């Protein structure tokens, strides 16, 4: 029961964004990924979530190879991602944003709509209830009816997490969940992640806020120039000489 990334490489033109990256984590674990800008973290997310294909290497979840699946198929297997700059369906309300991400609705299909309206309505009620639960959990209920484009940056981060939760996730790839978020909301988001992880949802998290991340995750991987430099317990990894040189420049004690 794990996410396995093995020897994944990806180049853009002549630039090697990912150079034989291998990482492994339990599907219900918590793994943080740090590294300077351009280290390949976001590219790694795009490859793992199926957004861009890898040139070489393989990604598997629970022993199942994902390499030939697109992002929608991976999302339905429970592997969902968020974006560094939060994205939302800006004309849809917060509630609709969440409901749109619910998988396997028979109302996705015009025929189902016209020939099984009862079933579609029953499913809609379930989806709406699930969206309400997520909004209560993330404290988004007060803005349920607001077009998502009008949310604050922090609320959009929460909505991203909420949309991931609606997809019945097993493992969520969080791209900088704390970036541009005020300190209070950072605590809030971290607490939610811990709570969800206790319920068995795994998280792979890219983050620049080292302090917040070190408190949150038991394991940390450090990337630099497309490679994984080190992986292990945060204290251990941050003490690693190569890491201090490549990433921290010795500034952070």
């Amino acid at each position, binding site marked *: 029961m794990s996410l396995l990334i093995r020897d994944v490489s990806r180049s853009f033109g002549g630039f090697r964004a990912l150079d034989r990256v291998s990482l492994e984590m339990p599907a219900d674990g918590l793994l943080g990924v740090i590294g300077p800008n351009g280290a390949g973290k976001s590219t790694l997310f795009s490859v793992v979530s199926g957004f861009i294909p890898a040139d070489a290497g393989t990604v598997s979840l629970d022993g199942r190879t994902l390499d030939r699946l697109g992002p929608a198929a991976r999302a339905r297997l429970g592997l969902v991602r968020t974006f560094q700059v939060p994205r939302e*369906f*800006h004309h849809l309300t917060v509630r609709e944003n969440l409901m749109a991400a619910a998988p396997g609705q028979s109302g996705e299909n015009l025929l189902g*709509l016209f020939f099984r309206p009862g079933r579609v309505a029953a499913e809609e009620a379930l989806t709406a209830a699930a969206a309400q639960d997520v909004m209560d959990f993330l404290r988004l209920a007060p803005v349920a009816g607001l077009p998502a484009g009008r949310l604050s940056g922090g609320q959009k981060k929460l909505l991203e997490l909420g949309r991931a939760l609606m997809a019945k996730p097993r493992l969520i790839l969080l791209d900088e969940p704390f970036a541009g978020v005020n300190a209070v909301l950072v605590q809030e988001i971290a607490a939610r992640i811990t709570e969800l992880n206790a319920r068995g949802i795994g998280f792979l998290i890219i983050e620049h806020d080292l302090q917040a991340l070190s408190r949150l995750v038991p394991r940390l991987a450090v990337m630099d120039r497309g490679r994984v430099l080190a992986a292990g317990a945060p204290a251990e990894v941050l003490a690693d000489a190569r890491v201090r040189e490549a990433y921290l420049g010795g500034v952070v004690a």
Partner: protein
Amino acid sequence: MLGQLFVAGVVHGLVIGLAALAVTLVFGIARFPNAAAGDTMTLGAYAGFAAHGATGSLAVAGGASVLAAAAASLAGYLLVFRPLARRPVAALLVAAIGVAFLIRAGLGLAFGHQQRVYQVPLAWPIEVMGLRISPMDLTLAGVALAALAVAFLVLYATPIGRQMRAVADDPDLARVSGIRPFRVMVALWLLAGAAAGIAGMMLGIKTVVSPEMGWESLLPAFAAAILGGIGSPVGAVAAGLVLGIAQEVSTPVVGFTYKIALAFAVLLAVLLVRPRGLFGRVEAVR
């Protein structure tokens, strides 16, 4: 006189509004100007004409126009637009013009190029608040409103409608949210085709059926879609009504021949003064 023209304008406006709805949905979700929308209307008009000729029933004609136009619209997607997805907009526009010519040529071959007229019974107009309204106008307005109600219900009150609007907002985010793009596209083309088909039948009943009728309606439809704010379904219908009423009411001033030019004028004015249209919102640049 003015009231009479206003009524005619409402019916004409509903036709334009339905066609503009088809245009704006495709533009918002598939992201190209579908120049085949007009000829999809023509197909709907002929399908309705044939069904009406065979059965004499307007309901059957409506059903036939919806089915034929939706099927043709879906076929256009599967055979032409889907293989060309992710190509530049210009390529898709040219392909759409090609599809339009294909439909028109097919209809010309099947039905000939002479004008056809729906054989609808003449009826005395009824007086409503001093206006004489033909029962057929009332029926057609009812049909159009019912079609719009169904379209808006699908868009705003169903899972697939929500997903269509989601894809319109951010196709990549829709994919990572597990929304299947293919299903959304199938629903889009069926819905857009059905709207165009009903519009075509209405236009055929109000005027005459000919292979060129839809092509000539394309400009008002695009003008309304742009005036309403491209990608805005409510805007498209509202702008269709505005344009239809403006065209009819201006007839005594500009004359019958030139009322079509009004659509051009509106189009130009909107593009120059308010490019995002009446209901359009400023889109974030990514």
